[in-house]
């Protein structure tokens, strides 16, 4: 047990802190001071400026190898980055879907050519990747996707309908699951494809999240020809008809599973500050302390997890526990803030917006009901 950072890590933190302070100021001047939601078209372009700045500073993907635009950082550097980033009040990361979901899959199962072609441009926020999993009839039950990919000379022909694609209306590429074996069922016969969104026959329609921002999109594929080389290294990730195993492998990868406590820590601290500003009674102070303790527990449990992972261990089903924890915690933190704001809580603002965003937590990335099933069956070993 040793909870001290070494000199390199302290230096990393110091350099980052200094860089963030300077660059956030410059970026805010650059965008004219008014920071918009990254889930609106204007806000998205504001944040692209930020993402590119992050990349120029070498901070967009600290834990990636240098050749792809990273710093060869360990999970510890990644944790430090997240702490400092949210502490400094950095904006949401609009490039996260590619970095959190596609990149781990490429690191695990992509070809060297694919990595070279995709990762640097992803890190530089040149190519913007969105996720093509869900369909109107395939939400929690992902294995029931019906969008089809028909092999043809020099590529694939795509037909179907994806939806709930986060920020799809603002992205340049989509990674998703398509049924490549027409006779297959469920998890079999799916292929993981990489698709530029500017191909003929693709229609993207943005639509509104709960808070009214155009954060979602549905993507229609109508006889879309996807050339094999539409993406450097090829458009198939992993083997043809083996897309499900790619998704599973990805879901099981450390980087895919980890979620940094930094953001929640920052929210808890804003909540404490808000309580000072609005005033609070003993009941509310206790509730805030309780939420703060849960935030601290998340930080400590993450240190434990990262220790396990860096020692070569793996998590897996335990990631479901983390998801349950942060998603419930995020709602609790925001509800508390709204209670402090009282009758003015309904105003459009950072807390009411944050609350609505937090409410998505128990739904996306596997509903909490499904996460509880996973905990019961795979952590506790209860019968299916």
């Amino acid at each position, binding site marked *: 047990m040793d909870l001290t950072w070494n000199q390199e890590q302290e230096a990393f933190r110091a350099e980052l802190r200094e860089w963030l302070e300077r660059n956030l100021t410059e970026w805010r001047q650059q965008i004219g001071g008014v920071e918009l939601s990254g889930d609106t078209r204007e806000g998205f372009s504001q944040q692209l400026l930020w993402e590119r700045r992050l990349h120029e500073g070498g901070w967009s993907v600290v834990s990636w190898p240098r050749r792809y635009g990273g710093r060869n950082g360990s999970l510890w550097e990644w944790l430090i980055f997240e702490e400092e980033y949210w502490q400094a009040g950095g904006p949401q990361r609009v490039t996260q879907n590619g970095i959190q979901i596609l990149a781990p899959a490429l690191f695990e199962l992509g070809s060297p050519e694919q990595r070279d072609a995709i990762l640097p441009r992803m890190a530089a926020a040149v190519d913007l990747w969105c996720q093509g999993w869900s369909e109107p009839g395939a939400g929690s039950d992902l294995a029931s996707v019906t969008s089809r990919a028909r092999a043809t000379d020099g590529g694939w022909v795509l037909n179907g309908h994806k939806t709930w694609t986060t920020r799809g209306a603002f992205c340049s590429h989509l990674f998703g699951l398509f049924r490549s074996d027409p006779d297959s069922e469920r998890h079999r016969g799916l292929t993981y494809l990489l698709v530029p969104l500017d191909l003929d026959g693709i229609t993207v329609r943005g639509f*509104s*999240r709960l808070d009214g921002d155009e954060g979602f999109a549905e993507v229609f594929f109508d006889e879309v020809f996807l050339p094999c080389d539409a993406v450097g290294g090829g458009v198939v990730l992993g083997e043809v008809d083996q897309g499900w195993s790619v998704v599973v492998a990805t879901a099981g990868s450390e980087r895919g599973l980890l979620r940094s406590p930094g953001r929640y820590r920052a929210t808890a601290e804003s909540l404490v500050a808000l309580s000072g500003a609005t005033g609070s009674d003993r009941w*509310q102070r206790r509730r805030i302390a309780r939420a703060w303790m849960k935030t601290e527990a998340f930080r400590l449990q993450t240190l434990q997890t990262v220790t396990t992972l860096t020692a070569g261990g793996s998590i897996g089903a335990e990631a479901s526990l983390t998801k349950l924890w942060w998603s419930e915690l995020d709602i609790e933190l925001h509800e508390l803030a*709204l209670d402090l704001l009282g*009758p003015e809580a*309904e105003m459009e603002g950072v807390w009411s917006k944050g609350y609505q965003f937090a409410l998505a937590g128990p739904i996306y990335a596997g509903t*909490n009901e499904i996460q509880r099933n996973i905990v019961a069956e795979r952590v506790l070993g209860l019968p299916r």
Partner: protein
Amino acid sequence: MRFGLDDDRTAMRDAARELLARWCPPDVVRAAWEGRPDPRPWQVLVEMGATSVLVPESRGGLGLDETFLTPVIEEAGWAALPQPLTTTALVAAPLGVTDSMVATDMGGPLVPQAVIAEAFLISEDAGLRLYQREEVDIEPVVTVDRARHCGRVRPRGPGTPLSDDRSVIALAFDRGVLGTAAELVGLAHRMLDLTVGYVTERHQFGRPVGSFQAVKHHLARAQLELSFAAPAVTYAAYAVANGLRDASRSVSTAKWLAGQAAAVTGRAALQCHGAIGYTTEADLHLFLKRSWALSRTWGSSDSHADRVAASLGL
């Protein structure tokens, strides 16, 4: 001994329900969101007498009491009516303010429906004062539920004093709380209805989502809270109508229970709708956002629990 609505009260509630079903479907609420409020739902409610239930017959009203009006307001909650029925019919009418759509700051500093109201009931140190539209400046405020048309209201003109009698003002506040509790029960009921419909038709893993025990238990919990909040609202209306000693406490109890029911039902409804509920394309958000606003106005749940605690000598 007889608890619940008799035929007359049931008839009035059903009449309101039918009118609202016809004239205030979700599209009308959405229109209000987009700044195109449709005047018809309000007109038909005025025509059926909903706004004059508490107005004496001598002054052209129905001369009835809160036990007739509250069930109608519950229906307005069910429909997420984008007009101020509680303030107009339950708070203002007994103060002698009739024939106009009334907004007030008694429930909080952001005045709901300020943008569309015709008259304003403003609480001042000296007491309650009424201002006509041309007597006030209104600064619109964007809130999460756009159909609330909130604004900050600043009197310009002289206005008319309505009452400086503390007990009258306290009763007016209790009436506002009562109406808000009734709206919350209606909203919870609507969110539950929408969700039961959705989970019955939505299939995943080859079966209706509603057949999973986790979903069943979320919604059973919502039904539980709703089943025990509704009678508390019914009683509070009776207690206020009959000036019972525990009227204020019953009103706080109703608001707290209704707030609980709406909160539990709202969370369950959103969770059981899944991603579709997390968009403005599904109707759920119209009711969910209204319930968030009402649960923190006309006194927070905590403040009402404190009122009850005090009344118990705690």
